[in-house]
């Protein structure tokens, strides 16, 4: 008798009807969007803060370097010594004092500038000042060598390299950003999914043990059916929750953006910087064009198919382990010692993905990790947007499938024995023995 659909239905319905599940489903997007809005709001608040920076220039070279901007006022101090200036700045509660001491020659100026402040100044402020001074000093030096200001202006060039593959496919720097975004999103999604719903499976196995219904159930169905039903039912509940999150999150994000007028692009992140740079270099229209090219350059069909396979494979691999752990213990606190070996490879996969794949998607490290079954789903999903040969994907998938067949088999063995064991926390040695029963 095949009871799988029945079990899946029950698992799904119990999960979906659970009060805390429902609350989490609808509250999480609210909290997430709230947090994003808060961060955006706070960073804007920070930017809008007006600051005054006083300048005491004894060298005479910083004369007209600094022009007042929207939120920074520069205040030139004249005719006082350093100590008086510091006292004055303190009294006025200025952001800080930029001080250039007397120097003999132009060459010494760069080494004689100091910034005094109450608290240590922000990196952006200092590097902004530095670059302004650098540009100015270069111009002054060039002028001293007889180059006119016009010539200097004219010498400024911007290069934007048009990229094209040997097959004639157009691409741009933006391509890598888009690839990274897609790959990272897929990998991270899988990671989150495994952790959230793997835990849910584990808890539901433990619940059956503690409520002692398990023996009644497995006198009617095979343990492996119950385990698979649990895994599939919980995953379907997970997919439902994820779908609601995406839809609700999208709607809320739009609403919040519209209401508060927060420009999400102002959120600073390294990737964002790259994008901003790209925009600066190319202009908006070129940017839009490149974006379309970048997305169309993605191996979309490959990406979708690989996502499905690696997602399912990776999820089954880990969730069967979660189910086995749930069966091996009596209560949730005992799960700790068995969790580490599961979490470690997952975290490793994400780190390898975000650090190594970005650096070199086809390097040795990335390639090797995209074959190891416990890391391959995450790492391979991140690599695929950069173009991975089909044979590599196929090989990795075969290894993954073989491993998950093995872990499901092993998990089912531990599960079968474990669900009827009460009382003591098993050791790894005992778990190994159970596999042989």
């Amino acid at each position, binding site marked *: *008798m095949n*009871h799988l659909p*029945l*079990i899946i239905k*029950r698992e799904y319905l*119990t999960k979906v009807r*659970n009060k805390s599940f429902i609350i989490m489903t609808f509250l999480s997007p609210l909290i997430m969007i709230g947090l994003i809005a808060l961060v955006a709001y706070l960073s804007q608040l920070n930017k809008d803060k007006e600051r005054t920076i006083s300048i005491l220039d004894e060298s005479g070279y910083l004369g007209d370097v600094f022009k007042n901007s929207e939120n920074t006022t520069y205040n030139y101090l004249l005719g006082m010594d350093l100590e008086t200036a510091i006292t004055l700045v303190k009294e006025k509660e200025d952001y800080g004092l930029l001080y250039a001491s007397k120097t003999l020659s132009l060459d010494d100026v760069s080494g004689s500038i100091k910034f005094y402040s109450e608290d240590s100044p922000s990196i952006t402020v200092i590097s902004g000042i530095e670059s302004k001074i650098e540009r100015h000093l270069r111009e002054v030096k060039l002028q001293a060598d007889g180059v006119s200001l016009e010539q200097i202006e004219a010498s400024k060039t911007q290069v934007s390299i048009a990229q094209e593959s040997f097959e004639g496919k157009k691409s741009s720097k933006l391509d890598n950003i888009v690839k990274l975004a897609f790959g990272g999103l897929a990998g991270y999604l899988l990671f989150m999914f495994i952790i959230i719903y793997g835990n849910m499976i584990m808890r539901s196995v433990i*619940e*059956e043990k503690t*409520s*002692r*219904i398990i*023996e*009644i*159930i*497995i*006198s*009617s*169905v*095979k343990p492996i059916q119950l385990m698979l039903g649990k895994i599939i039912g919980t995953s379907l509940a997970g997919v439902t929750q994820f779908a609601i999150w995406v839809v609700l999150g999208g709607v809320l994000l739009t609403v919040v953006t519209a209401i508060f007028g927060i420009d999400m692009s102002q959120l600073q992140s390294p990737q964002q910087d790259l994008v901003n740079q790209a925009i600066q270099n190319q202009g908006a229209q070129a940017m839009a064009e490149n974006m379309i090219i970048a997305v169309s350059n993605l191996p979309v069909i490959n990406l979708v198919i690989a996502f499905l396979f690696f997602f399912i494979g990776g999820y089954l691999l880990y969730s069967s382990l979660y189910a086995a752990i749930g069966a091996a213990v009596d209560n949730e606190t005992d799960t700790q010692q068995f969790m580490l070996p599961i979490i470690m490879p997952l975290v490793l996969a994400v780190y390898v993905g975000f650090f190594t794949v970005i650096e070199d998607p086809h390097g040795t490290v990335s390639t090797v990790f995209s074959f190891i079954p416990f890391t391959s789903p995450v790492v391979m999903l991140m690599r695929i947007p950069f173009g991975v040969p089909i044979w590599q994907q196929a090989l990795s998938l075969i290894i993954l499938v073989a491993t998950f067949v093995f872990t499901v088999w092993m998990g089912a063995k531990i599960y079968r024995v474990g669900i*009827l064991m*009460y009382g003591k926390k098993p050791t790894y040695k005992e778990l190994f*023995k159970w596999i042989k*029963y």
Partner: protein
Amino acid sequence: MNDLLVADSVSKSYGNFKALNEVSIAVPKGSIFGLLGPNGAGKTTLIRIINQITMPDEGTVALDGQFLRAEHIKDIGYLPEERGLYKSMKVGEQALYLAQLKGLSKVEAKKRLKYWFDKLEIGDWWNKKIQELSKGQAQKIQFVVTVLHKPKLLIFDEPFSGFDPINANLIKDEILQLRNEGATVIFSTHRMESVEELCDHIALIHKSNKILDGRLNDIKRKFKTNTFEIGLQSQDPNKIMSEIKENFEVLPATFKNLHDDIKINIKIDASTSPNDLLSYLMTKAEIHHFVEVLPSANDIFIETVKNN
């Protein structure tokens, strides 16, 4: 075929521990079969093998002449000793789910549940959650779920634990009625008075081996000591006592009676018939009480386990 279930030389080991050692039992159709044994003897392992929860290492189990297969799951109803229900699921939904796992259609399951719920007067629990019920109430649900699919073989492991005397009686009557309707029952318990009351066959498992089995009456006959409990009345009890003591082995006895001067147990040889004893006594005194002392299931249990 008179035996519904036949287990033949069933062995099962867990690592180095042998839980069952070549155990054979035959459960006759329509009987109530007591599966007895001290804690940890291997009863639960045998029951789990019959339920196909675990597989035997060696030996075979046949139901109705066929080796156990997956299809037999619907022919067996099992109430485990360690039993519970999904705490946060509603009673009706849960009972429906468990019935469907046993192969009943949803419509049929609903119909039969209604019948049983009415019979046990628990119809208004349908939409309650298990965690709102008491332990005894939850046990009732478990009983209903066990028998709902009308299995040929019912296995009850300590069915009365958790029930008050009234409900225990109710369940006992239901078990007897199910047997009368044709079901065969395997009954595992430590409460010997219910074995005495219900079982017509027993098997005793001790330290993974079966050490005794058969019809309860046959076993009792085998264990009887030809001892008779006797109450006499006489003018001169002391004289009669000494006369009896010369001819028979006499043991002290305690039982309740109105006016007996002499209360004794007399043990006779296997060759002597009770009639001989009776006619001898008739000549000596007035007989008010004459009962053969039969070993209780409790005595048999303790004696057999001790001797092994």
